[in-house]
């Protein structure tokens, strides 16, 4: 029993220089390396190797790298895959080449829906979980009319769509939406449209710096003073840190992990902080978890051969600092609890990186789409 080609190699493919670089970026590579070290550095008697690359959020660059990794560099699994367009592209290649991919960085539910792969897994979070978490919370607070600022690609559409569904199901209305290209710098004219729409909630169906910029500029144009509410549908610790508590306070957001949750998470975070100088968000930790689980599966399957590992991954329960009590659906979705968080006021933050109050824990079953209803044709 051994690795088929004498090595086990994991590729971390993510955005390391663009608008989503803070989400994961180089720090995620560290998280992956930590996972390998914590696992003992070897599996089935061969060393585990991590390679990484920056895909600049461009699906074509990502595909080229992925192809080359799978074809010529004996990479066994590719992980993280920030941003949905990239993840969809790479998952398609992985499926065709019968290789494993575990997505922790992208959000679209298509990955485990119509684009699902027997060898593809979706690990940290998804748009449905965000819609349920953040969208749901705001609707409950009375935000029953929405206007969306949507990133113009798969992720944005799916986040807007699922939040819309949720809002409508709760009796609310959506009064309009504008789409903006990835990495937009000036949101002012979009914000003016949102402002004059009169919606109670302006839903930011975007991510990363796009969201941060939109929030900052909304403040500049006095949008929150005007009584409208901003919903950052995808926002993590990293962005809160970048934006600062002053500007971010009061935002409601949903993450799959919070470092200050319990002792176990704090211990992990401390180690991570020592290596990267920042506290982990759900994507860093998700990547750690994905690498760990993959190695466990290889170990258990006794081979790095794709079919066997994929089978094991589907069957084996997840239990680590990230995915406590997680299970993997037949569509590849890892189902675990999510946390509804609120950003603290600057005065309430007791230590560096102490940013959130945990408002609620959303059970995995609620947060994620039932695999049977996901539209994935692998689920009978």
């Amino acid at each position, binding site marked *: 029993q051994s690795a088929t080609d004498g090595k086990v190699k994991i590729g971390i493919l993510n955005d*390391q*220089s*663009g*608008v*989503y*670089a*803070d989400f994961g970026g180089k720090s995620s590579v560290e998280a992956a390396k930590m996972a390998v070290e914590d696992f003992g550095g070897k599996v089935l008697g061969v060393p585990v190797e991590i390679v990484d690359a920056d895909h*600049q959020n461009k699906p074509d660059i990502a595909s080229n790298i992925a192809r080359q990794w799978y074809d010529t560099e004996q990479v066994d699994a590719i992980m993280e895959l920030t941003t949905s367009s990239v993840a969809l592209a790479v998952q398609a290649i992985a499926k065709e080449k019968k290789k494993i991919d575990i997505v922790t960085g992208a959000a679209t539910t298509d990955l485990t829906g119509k684009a699902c792969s027997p060898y593809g897994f979706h690990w940290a979070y998804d748009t449905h979980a965000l819609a349920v978490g953040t969208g749901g919370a705001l609707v409950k607070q009375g935000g029953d009319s929405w206007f969306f600022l949507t990133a113009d690609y798969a992720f944005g559409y799916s986040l807007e769509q699922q939040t819309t569904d949720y809002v409508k199901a709760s009796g609310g209305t959506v009064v309009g939406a*504008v789409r903006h290209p990835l*990495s937009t*710098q*000036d949101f*002012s*004219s979009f914000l*003016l*449209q949102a*402002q*004059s729409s009169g919606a109670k909630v302006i839903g930011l169906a975007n991510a*990363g*710096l796009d969201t941060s*910029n939109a929030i*900052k500029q909304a403040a*500049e*144009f*006095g949008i929150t*003073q*005007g009584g409208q509410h901003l919903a950052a549908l995808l926002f993590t610790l990293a962005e809160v840190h*970048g934006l600062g508590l002053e500007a971010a306070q009061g935002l409601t957001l949903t993450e799959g992990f919070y470092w200050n949750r319990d002792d176990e998470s704090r211990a992990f975070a401390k180690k991570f902080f020592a290596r990267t100088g920042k506290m982990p968000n759900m994507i860093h930790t998700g990547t750690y978890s994905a690498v760990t689980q993959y190695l466990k599966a290889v170990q258990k399957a006794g081979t790095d051969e794709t079919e066997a590992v994929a089978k094991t991954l589907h069957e084996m329960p997840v239990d680590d600092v990230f995915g406590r009590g997680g299970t993997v659906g037949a569509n590849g979705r890892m189902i675990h609890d999510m946390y509804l968080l609120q950003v603290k006021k600057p005065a309430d933050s007791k230590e560096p990186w102490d940013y959130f109050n945990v408002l609620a824990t959303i059970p995995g079953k609620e947060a994620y789409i039932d695999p049977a209803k996901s539209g994935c044709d692998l689920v009978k």
Partner: protein
Amino acid sequence: MTMIFGIPLQALLGQLLIGLINGSFYALLSLGLAIIFGLLRVINFAHGAQYMLGAFVAYLLLTYAGIGYWPSLILAPVIVGFGGAIIERLFLRRLYDLDPLYGLLFTFGLALAVEGTFRYLYGSSGQPYATPAALAGGANLGFMFLPIYRGWVVVVSLVVCLGTWLLIEKTKLGAYLRAATENAVLVQVFGVNVPVLLTLTYALGAGLAAFAGVLAAPIYQVSPLMGSNMIIVVFAVVVVGGMGSIMGAIITGYVLGIAEGLTKVFYPEASNIVIFVIMAIVLLIRPAGLFGRDA
């Protein structure tokens, strides 16, 4: 709410104002391009990079030297202009005798290298730059909430554009510049050190771009690619205006900014391309541009 063509007045005026703000940047940048092109016959593709550098220098001054917005507003253009002067002396100068396309290609390469370097050093995500305290906040104009800083941008860009225009139209140095634009050799025969004039002109153009960059820093993120997105639109502005006159460059900049703002109200899908569409129409009617003279 008052409506105009089915559009709330508030939205219309708001977008117009935003168009004017964008127009301020277009005007500053196309002005710099026009000055450089007029004398050096170089289409300065690095103009976007110099705009970005202006913003970055301001950011770096703040981060590493604690120098704030106001001094940066002067310092950054001077620094970038100085860098431009060096580039002109060392490289651009060698290209004057060749097809002007080489100047375009050289500055294109320069832009790539500079932007690449900053992306390498700072990532493409961009750095925040705070609005100076004195200009923070906003004023409620009734139809919209105008951030004071953006109002300042419009005013200061108008002042700088007019100032530059006066410099060129009303001073001795400006006369040299205009004369050299027409016939550099003759001006040199008249004892003017035209090579130095060329250097100064390039520095001035680069400095103007950098100035626009500093102005932009608090509005947008300070990001390595902020200029490359801008420069192509500015090229279109320049084609529409034609390279004939300084005033033409300024006016076209503002007008197209506003046109873009209006499109955002009436047909937002086309807002990104409206300037290019206008360019195509102008080309059909007046190939030399609105203010251009036939080459």
